[in-house]
């Protein structure tokens, strides 16, 4: 059966299920604290149910049976028959892990392993705690799923109906799906008529198969169990039509008509966000019997001559008007299928899923966004060149009107490219919550395994950053959190002893700050120990005793980012292998970001990460040094001053700039870059900041501000200098972008060697 499921369907399933799994993690942890939140419980149930439905459609038995067990357990909680305890949540979270693993196996093309029996047993136990009769947990019968469905109701005819909800993006296309379904049903009918008139079975068979595939795509997308089983039947008919004995064809045709008879009211009901619950098992069995070339033994069913009779004989009880809103079943006019679905007066049905008006979304491959981003980068460069051209032209003797036209066209182009760039960049932006969403689970697990009590607070999760930033931030964040939970937060008893609340708190605080995103991870644990860090740093040969003595506490703390440095006396399974914080710094500097640690012993530790919002385009100030122009990222510039003898002097051989109350190391760019000197040299001092370090750069001229597209400079011919990249200027020439981090660091080092400055100091570890 699997062979008729195409890859795109599988991919959709994987993407969607993975998202649901992430959400499940978050919701389950929330549920633990909000045990009475039935809405949340329903949400969890729906997510699991969706995964189960899709898995069963794709014939993923291992996943279906497992999700099924989890669903049963969850259902008990929804009915209030099982209390939401830590143990239950543990089981559920483990189940989520198993499903996640199964999804991964599927994505990797491996065989999906069945869930561990002990966990399934545990789930069954939860499901059965208060009900001696186990719920049917063997297969995916419509009957049983009915009992699991939300808001079960009995339709007038006796058939059960449950309301269903769709995620917004699905709800939006619901009317189209209903149309498609009715259309397919009509086509199927014409096929069967032709078959009855003696058309070639081969041709009809192919058409039926094609139709079933169309329907199957819809059914799979909407995760509708009944429809899935109906479509499977149609498919089976199509497959065996050629091989089956001719005398059975009328009986099969009748059953296909029966299916059509079912699909029509079904489509109408789905259009109203309700799904009937039909026990189709017997019907399916008998159809299968027929298709395998045997006659049906049950007399009533075999003798049936109309669809209704077949259904009655096979135990599917569907009266003529099965839906409460009594949509005529035999005239499947797509009234209800149009965009104005609701027929009833109930205002709720006008917003079938409670999510109408939600944003419509389209999934786009990241690759496409990236190539779009590159193109916009090129375009910004070209725009800059045109702007330069415009300036050159306006110097020429042209008619005034022409000059004006050039100016206004160029400024229009400027604005449009700017908007385009922002727009494209925005498509790549994702909220940090996408990353932070996993953390409550991580912290909960850590707390459980270490017997600590830890509260995680997340502030500013809606802050958006570029996708690439998000991805590179993932690992460092986990490392930091683990460190905070493992090494920072003390055991409850120790906390009480030192007069703190038993429960430790880790706060993640994210916010935009200029062109940067700042993420703080604050814990109120025991803080870092200067003595331990300093002695370790000396032991590891990172620094010397003499140097340590002159360092401030915060300078000593930065040692935790050095490679092979771990303060945990014992290596735990959580952290403490001495690689974590090193990875943190490497990853963050890859993003052009910074990481700092501030700590007060006994009160806690704050780790602060600052990273640029985007890595490709940045506003920069072009400055002239000698005969060249260099770019300095605007985000790093604090101010620009004109130094004179009163503010610019030398301390112990190192040049410094006195800026109001602070003294900054001063870098003579002419010297550093080997540019020629003249009377213009060192006219301006650009005060830059990187992390918490400041420095002044002496430059000759200020050229102006420009958006620059960063091009890498990393082959062995051009790397090595204090440059983070290069960019193409308006005139088409290349300017190098100054690496502010490297400059401030080297300035501080040479400065510190000259004379330590108390106010603004730091250390390059």
């Amino acid at each position, binding site marked *: 059966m699997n062979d008729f499921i195409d890859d795109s369907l599988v991919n959709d399933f994987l993407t969607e299920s993975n998202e649901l799994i992430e959400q499940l993690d978050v919701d389950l942890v929330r549920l633990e604290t909000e045990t009475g939140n039935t809405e949340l419980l329903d949400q969890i149930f729906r997510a699991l149910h969706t995964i189960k439905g899709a898995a069963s459609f794709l014939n993923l038995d291992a996943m279906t049976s497992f999700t099924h067990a989890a669903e049963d357990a969850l259902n008990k909680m929804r009915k209030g028959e099982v209390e939401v305890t830590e143990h239950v949540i543990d089981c559920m979270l483990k189940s989520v892990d198993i499903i996640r693993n199964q999804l991964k196996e599927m994505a990797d093309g491996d065989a999906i392993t069945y869930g561990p029996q002990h966990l399934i047993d545990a789930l069954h136990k939860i499901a059965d705690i208060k009900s001696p009769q186990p719920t049917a947990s063997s297969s995916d019968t419509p009957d049983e799923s009915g009992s699991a469905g939300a808001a079960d109701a009995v339709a007038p005819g006796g058939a059960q109906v449950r309301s269903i909800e769709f995620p917004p993006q699905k709800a939006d296309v619901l009317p189209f799906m209903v149309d498609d379904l009715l259309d397919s049903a009509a086509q199927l009918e014409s096929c069967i008529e032709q078959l009855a008139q003696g058309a070639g079975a081969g041709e009809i068979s192919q058409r039926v198969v094609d139709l079933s595939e169309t329907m199957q795509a819809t059914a799979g997308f909407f995760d509708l169990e009944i429809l899935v089983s109906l479509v499977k039947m149609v498919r089976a008919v199509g497959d065996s039509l050629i091989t089956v004995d001719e005398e059975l064809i009328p009986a099969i045709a009748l059953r296909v008509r029966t299916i059509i008879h079912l699909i029509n009211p079904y489509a109408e009901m789905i259009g109203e966000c309700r799904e009937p619950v039909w026990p189709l098992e017997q019907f399916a069995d008998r159809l299968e019997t027929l298709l395998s070339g045997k006659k049906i033994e049950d007399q009533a069913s075999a003798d049936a001559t109309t669809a209704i009779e077949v259904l009655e004989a096979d135990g599917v009880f569907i009266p003529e008007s099965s839906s409460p809103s009594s949509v005529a079943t035999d005239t499947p006019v797509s009234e209800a299928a149009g965009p104005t679905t609701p027929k009833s007066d109930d205002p709720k049905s006008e917003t079938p899923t409670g999510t109408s008006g939600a944003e419509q979304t389209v999934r786009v491959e990241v690759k496409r966004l990236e190539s779009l981003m590159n193109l916009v980068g090129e375009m910004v460069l070209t725009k800059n060149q045109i702007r330069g051209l415009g300036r050159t032209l306006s110097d020429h003797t042209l008619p005034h009107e022409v000059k004006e036209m050039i100016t206004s066209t160029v400024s229009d182009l400027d604005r449009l490219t700017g908007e385009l760039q922002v727009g494209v960049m925005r498509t790549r932006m994702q909220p940090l919550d996408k990353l932070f969403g996993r953390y409550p689970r991580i912290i909960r697990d850590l707390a459980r395994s270490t017997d600590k009590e830890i509260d995680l607070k997340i502030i500013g999760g809606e802050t958006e950053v570029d996708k690439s930033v998000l991805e590179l931030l993932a690992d460092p964040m986990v490392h930091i959190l683990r460190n905070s939970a493992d090494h920072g937060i003390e055991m409850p008893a120790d906390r009480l002893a030192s007069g703190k609340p038993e429960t430790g708190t880790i706060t993640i605080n994210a916010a935009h700050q200029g062109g940067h995103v700042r993420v703080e991870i604050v814990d109120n644990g025991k803080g870092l120990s200067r003595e331990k860090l300093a002695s370790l740093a000396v032991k590891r040969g990172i620094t010397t005793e003499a140097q340590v003595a002159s360092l401030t506490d915060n300078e000593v703390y930065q040692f935790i980012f050095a490679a092979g440095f771990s303060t945990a006396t014992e290596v735990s399974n959580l952290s403490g292998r001495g690689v974590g914080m090193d990875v943190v710094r490497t990853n963050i500097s890859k993003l052009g970001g910074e990481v700092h640690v501030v700590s007060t012993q006994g009160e806690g530790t704050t780790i602060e990460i600052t990273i640029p919002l985007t890595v490709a385009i940045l506003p920069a100030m072009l400055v002239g040094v000698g005969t060249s122009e260099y770019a300095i990222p605007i985000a790093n510039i604090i101010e620009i001053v004109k130094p004179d003898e009163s503010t610019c002097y030398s301390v112990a051989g190192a040049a410094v700039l006195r800026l109001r109350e602070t003294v900054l190391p001063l870098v003579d760019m002419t010297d550093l870059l080997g540019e020629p000197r003249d009377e213009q040299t060192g006219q301006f001092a650009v005060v830059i900041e990187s992390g918490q370090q400041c420095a002044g750069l002496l430059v000759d001229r200020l050229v102006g501000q420009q958006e620059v597209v960063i091009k890498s400079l990393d082959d062995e*011919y*051009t790397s090595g200098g204090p440059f983070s990249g290069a960019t193409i200027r308006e005139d088409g020439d290349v300017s190098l972008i100054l690496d502010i981090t490297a400059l401030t660091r080297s300035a501080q080092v040479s400065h510190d060697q000259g004379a330590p400055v108390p106010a603004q100091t730091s250390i390059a570890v």
Partner: protein
Amino acid sequence: MTTTSTTTDLMQDTNTQNDSELLQLVSFVVGVEEYAIPILRVQEINRMMQITRVPQSPEFVEGVINLRGKIIPVVDLRARFGLGCSESTSENRIIVVEVSGRVIGFTVDKVNEVLRISANIVDDPPTMVSGIETDYVEGVGKLDDRLLILLDLNKLFGDVDLGAAGEQAAADAA
């Protein structure tokens, strides 16, 4: 070649065929010597353009240029060969080549011509060629009126291990 060839053609053909294939080269001048590289390695030849100096880079690196939106390094071949500074003339050119996936430009005093020579007139490099380390020399082509030094681009530019993949990835990222 074909049977319809004239006698002279045939004679030339036997000459070349017996020993090896034809080499298609681009010849250029650096200092007083004439050098050549296989034409298939050449991406393009440009007139001199604005080269941005990259401070703190190796001495023989002249800087970087904007090659239609891509930034590529340019090596001063005179400096690479230790021949001292070149005088800039209107005949100076930047030859752009690809060496193990990396695009690199180098400056030459003058580009001479595109020529075909038969591989059998190329000798192994002598131990010393006009002061250049012979590592870079693949062979010496003996033309009727002059000598041609065939350069090995891989040895000339590919001697530092920076994978092509890494650079490409970095370029894509930017």
